[in-house]
């Protein structure tokens, strides 16, 4: 317990870093996921921009990346991280790698959420002369907004999970904190403190997500 009190400044710093990592990955991974999901949805058979080749490539890509355990993906994607963000280690490298992995995971969720939009509504938009871009922004995304918010809330938890291994490549955050000061120092109290913070964090975001989704669904 004394250790924990001494480590409090470190704990807050780690919490801040987790927020930082998760915030940025949610942003970039969210955009990536939206693009992948839209790509999958729009190119699938019978959709407004049906394209077999695009769909097959995206589909195989998503199915390839998603099952790779994140810790392995982290190592495998290191050269790519070096190329894109200039370094294979540190917070920027972890943000890049999580965002990349999350794009594919989120892509599948976005695709599924978009599939809940009744095809008839899209047909109605087409019948008044709306083009694909207009349909995406005025029909698909607004009609699927409620489920999409819930999907993003769901992926948020996965991001917190992924961010926990940041310590392996020199990143920070609550995961690294728990490993370094709790697990390796045989101090479960320190580990539990990190766990508690993560739980509070996740609960808050889930609560917020549910509220926003309910508002979007007007229920």
């Amino acid at each position: 317990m004394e250790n924990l009190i001494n480590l409090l400044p470190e704990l807050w710093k780690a919490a801040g870093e987790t927020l930082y990592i998760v915030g940025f990955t949610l942003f970039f991974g969210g955009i990536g996921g939206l693009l992948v999901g839209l790509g999958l949805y729009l190119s699938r058979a019978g959709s407004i921009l049906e394209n077999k080749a695009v769909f097959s490539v995206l589909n195989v890509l998503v199915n390839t990346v998603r099952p790779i355990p994140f810790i392995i993906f982290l190592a495998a994607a290191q050269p790519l991280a070096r190329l894109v963000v200039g370094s294979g280690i540190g917070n920027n490298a972890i943000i890049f790698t999580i965002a990349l992995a999350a794009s594919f995971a989120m892509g599948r969720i976005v695709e599924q959420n978009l599939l809940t939009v009744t095809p008839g509504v899209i047909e109605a938009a087409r019948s008044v002369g709306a083009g694909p871009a207009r349909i995406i922004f005025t029909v698909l995304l607004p009609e699927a907004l409620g489920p999409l918010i819930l999907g993003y809330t769901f992926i948020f938890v996965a991001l917190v999970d992924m961010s926990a291994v940041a310590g392996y490549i020199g990143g920070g955050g609550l995961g690294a904190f728990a490993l370094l000061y709790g697990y390796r120092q045989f101090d479960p109290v320190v580990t539990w403190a990190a766990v508690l913070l993560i739980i509070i964090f996740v609960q808050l975001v889930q609560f917020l997500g549910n509220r926003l989704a309910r508002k979007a669904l007007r229920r």
Partner: protein
Amino acid sequence: MSPTPLVELRNVSKVYPATVKGAPDVTAIDDVSLSIDAGDVYGIIGYSGAGKSTLVRLVNVLERSTAGEILIDGRDVARLPERELRPVRLGIGMIFQQFNLLNSRSVARNVAYPLEVAGHDKTKRASRVAEMLDFVGLADKAGAFPDQLSGGQKQRVGIARALASSPAILLADEATSALDPETTHEVLDLLKRVNREFGVTIIVITHEMDVIQTLATKVAVMDKGRVIERGDVFDVFSNPQQSASARFVSTVVKGQPSAPELEVLRARHGGRIVTLAFRDDTVDQSRVFSEFSRDGVAFQVVYGGINEIQGRPFGHLTLALTGEDATIDAALDRVRAFTTVTEVR
């Protein structure tokens, strides 16, 4: 010479390639030609799977025909690229069985949608939306969301939306099939007003004959992707040429009794059973009946009825006749002079 029809289909076909390798292609529309004049309310009737919904989607090219020409106001739109189709579609409104309203938008913003697509500014949109909601009687629901409306109200919003961009043509795809009978009649009355007050040409797809009866002026009967019969609603109703058409007509109009019905009639009534056709007022019923009573032939109306379409009466009456065979024959001969008599043995 008649003016150019507003919508004309010339030898149109739609073939879906087989989904499974080796299976035959599916012909949804098979060499259909139709001509619809401005101001018509044109009904297309058929059982599910007859190709009606596909046919109507070929008109605004939501689905591409695989052969033939589709002329809208004389211009073939069948092969136009998607981009050039958009202004065409603004001129063709469409309403749906499941209404297809945007749940994320209020009633007013649903109606405004085609106007946004057409690029009208906010003030113009607002005044047109108000005008349309007023027309369909939902001015007080402008701020409501679709899930707060009843089915009939949703379809009225659908109609307001379909007409917002002032199209010349309205496609109604089973527009009343999800509604109860009373609401159906409200919506049909509204569509009648759309035709009368705005002069909008309406193409109605339905499997319900009473929709055709109340709304349409002309009708085409579809079966297995083909149009098997077409004409004025009155002609098709009073004298269907094809058995499929006759079956549809019989759902709303009692014509000649079917074989099992005949058996029941025969068991219940003695004597000879004849069916007389009445059409318009060319046949004077009282004259027919007086021919029978003159010779002492007793008659009883056992089946049928007289209906009215567009103010013109028609129908079939089946009579059970009792009396001397020779007198009945003589009476029937005289009646045959002014109406069709079918004797069922």
